[in-house]
């Protein structure tokens, strides 16, 4: 039905990262999308992965201390 030679959920799990990275060819993408349209189990895990990437990115982002920018600007070559 879905073109998977192995367990479709296992195959879908394998495609998760390249799917979200938009790194699948058309056929693989169609295969994943077809399975996702039928399988709530995988759909939930794909949505979680997307959310997880956003969460991690936000959680680990640390802004530059303001005084560092001043220090960097002081490294510029003085104008003569």
């Amino acid at each position: 039905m879905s073109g998977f030679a192995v367990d479709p959920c296992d195959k879908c799990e394998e495609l998760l990262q390249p799917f979200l990275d938009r790194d699948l060819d058309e056929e693989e993408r169609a295969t994943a999308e077809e399975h996702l349209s039928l399988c709530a189990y995988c759909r939930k895990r794909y949505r979680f992965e997307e959310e997880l990437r956003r969460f991690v990115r936000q959680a680990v982002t640390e802004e530059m201390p303001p005084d560092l920018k001043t220090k960097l600007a002081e490294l510029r070559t003085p104008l003569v």
Partner: protein
Amino acid sequence: MGETAPETEARRLAEDARDRVRFEEEALELADQVYRVARRMVSSREEAEDLMQETYARAFRSWKSFQPGTNLRAWLLRILTNLNIDRGRRVQRAPDMQPLEEGDYFLYNKLEESTQAPNPDEERVIERLSQDDAVVALSAVPHDFRDVIVLVDLGDFSYNDAAQILDIPVGTVMSRLHRGRRILKRELAERALVDGGDSE
């Protein structure tokens, strides 16, 4: 009609100065973005600050080697990565090849199991992770994998840019990214399940 040699030299110097100032301004405008990546490539804020200053000092000295029109942020991070390796802060070694059995659904499955409610929404599942869990889990990912995650997932660099910054083949970027994200999820699962997911 033609310029004298001193005039030509003066014009050349003036153009150089103008180009250098423009370069320095553009590099400084990118400092926030470079710092966000640098901060997660090293262990502490102090290290990140030192590395940023060394990077910018070197970039300002060697600004002429930057090819205008190419990716300045990637160029700065290439300098930063090399300095980080040169200073021995980061020992280059073979990537961690310990077996990793867990697949990409591992973290979700573990968190879902530990959630009290039956069949929870993915929003409820992700709430089991704290900001601290994410910071500590990322720092526990071996450098070779973490650098790629930081460049691609935090820094929004393409696979090609990440390959150039780290001086590794694109295929290696892809395989380290794939494996690194799985290691990160394993680390997140360990932390979330140990602290019950309710810290912070």
